[in-house]
């Protein structure tokens, strides 16, 4: 119980700090909007083929915009040596990691929920038909992005070229999850429910989430404390 209270305190602190400045969320949302705009030049936004690749487009937006939030997660603690204070606090590394991950998750999901309707309007995509399943895929994909991103945010916080290294490390690891999320999202946007052919991608997403959450919780102590 104590563990979850610590997790909640960290998550609460992070969300509150972010809501006061809104720097990461605003940057992330603006960035998502810019990518959505740029895609309209890369593809004909009216055509049917754009709808067929819409899952891929959407997840590229989420992954890029999410990286901005995740980059700030540990970097925010650098001024005034807050990170050292957090590590020295009488809580386990796992609690610190999970708290930060939950806060990031809330922010990433918030950005996704705002950019989803924008995407649907700009690209004339109907989300209504399979909305609950789409939200499930969104939630699972966002957790994959968050857990990997938060872990590598902790890993890269003190190293040179932090902003470059985080995406460089995150996206290749994330690729199976992104593959699954893109495939499912495309199907759901086109109005096909998750069926026999696609349910394994859902399983892949869940498996990915579970495995990497476990691995991160086990290994984060090494990253934070050494």
């Amino acid at each position: 119980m104590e563990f979850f209270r610590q997790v909640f305190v960290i998550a609460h602190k992070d969300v509150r700090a972010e809501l006061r400045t809104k720097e990461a969320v605003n940057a992330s949302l603006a960035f998502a909007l810019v990518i959505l705009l740029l895609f309209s030049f890369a593809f004909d936004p009216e055509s049917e083929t754009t709808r067929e690749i819409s899952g891929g487009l959407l997840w590229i937006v989420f992954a890029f915009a999410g990286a901005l939030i995740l980059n700030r997660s540990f970097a925010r603690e650098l001024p005034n040596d807050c990170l050292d204070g957090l590590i020295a606090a009488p809580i386990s590394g796992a609690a610190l990691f999970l708290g930060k991950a939950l806060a990031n998750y809330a922010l990433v999901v918030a950005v996704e929920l705002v950019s989803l309707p924008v995407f649907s309007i700009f690209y004339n995509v109907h989300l209504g038909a399979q909305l609950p399943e789409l939200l499930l895929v969104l939630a699972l994909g966002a957790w994959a992005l968050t857990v990997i991103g938060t872990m590598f945010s902790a890993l890269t916080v003190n190293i040179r070229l932090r902003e470059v290294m985080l995406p460089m490390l995150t996206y290749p690891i994330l690729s199976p999850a992104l593959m699954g999320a893109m495939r499912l999202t495309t199907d759901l946007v086109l109005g096909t429910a998750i069926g026999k052919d696609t349910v394994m991608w859902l399983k892949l997403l869940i498996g990915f989430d579970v495995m990497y959450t476990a691995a991160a919780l086990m290994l984060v102590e090494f990253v934070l404390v050494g």
Partner: protein
Amino acid sequence: MRDKILWILAIAAVALLTRDILVMVDLPPEKMQGAIFKIIFFHVPMAMTAMAACGVALIASVLFLVTKNFLYDALAVSVTEVGLAFLAANLITGSIWGRNQWGIWWAWDARLTSALVCWILYASYLMLRRAIDEPTQRATFSAVFSIFCFIDVPIVIFSIKWWRTQHPQPVFWGGGSIPAGWYAIALWQLLAMLLLGTVLTMIRLRDEESQREIESMRRMAHAF
């Protein structure tokens, strides 16, 4: 002692490789593909050697985190670099075969994609190492990253089966139809590649240890 073992292994690897190549030269061309099929005796063993290297890198990384012995860190980086070279060779030989048989250098089929993802994963491991200066931090962080990479490999590989695939189904140990004698060549060739990989890793390991020694001497010189 270690140098002697290294020499013996190196000579064995070269001898085995020469013998394999001589045997392969004598093989008749395949009915459909012609002589290009012989590339498979490099392509497949190289992939397996690269996979073995991933496994060794995982073990070395875990052992480093447990023992904090820098020898394991040196082993992890050495074996990863060698494995990356083998995987690159695997991708290149596959690409040559694909150009000859499919008419294209690269197809975005799942198996090729997953091999490429693995290559990028371990390449970013090496990039991560370069970005960290402090030795203990570098060793710890890269060990954690290596474990993360290794977890990804089976997920990436299993997603092959779910994605439509253009890659020929495995002919060795995968229900393909090939003459019985070829298994023996493939196995000998696998042994040759594993030996070659071991030799290269040992050379790289020696390199890494000398590097560490030089660094510590430099630090000592600065201290005075």
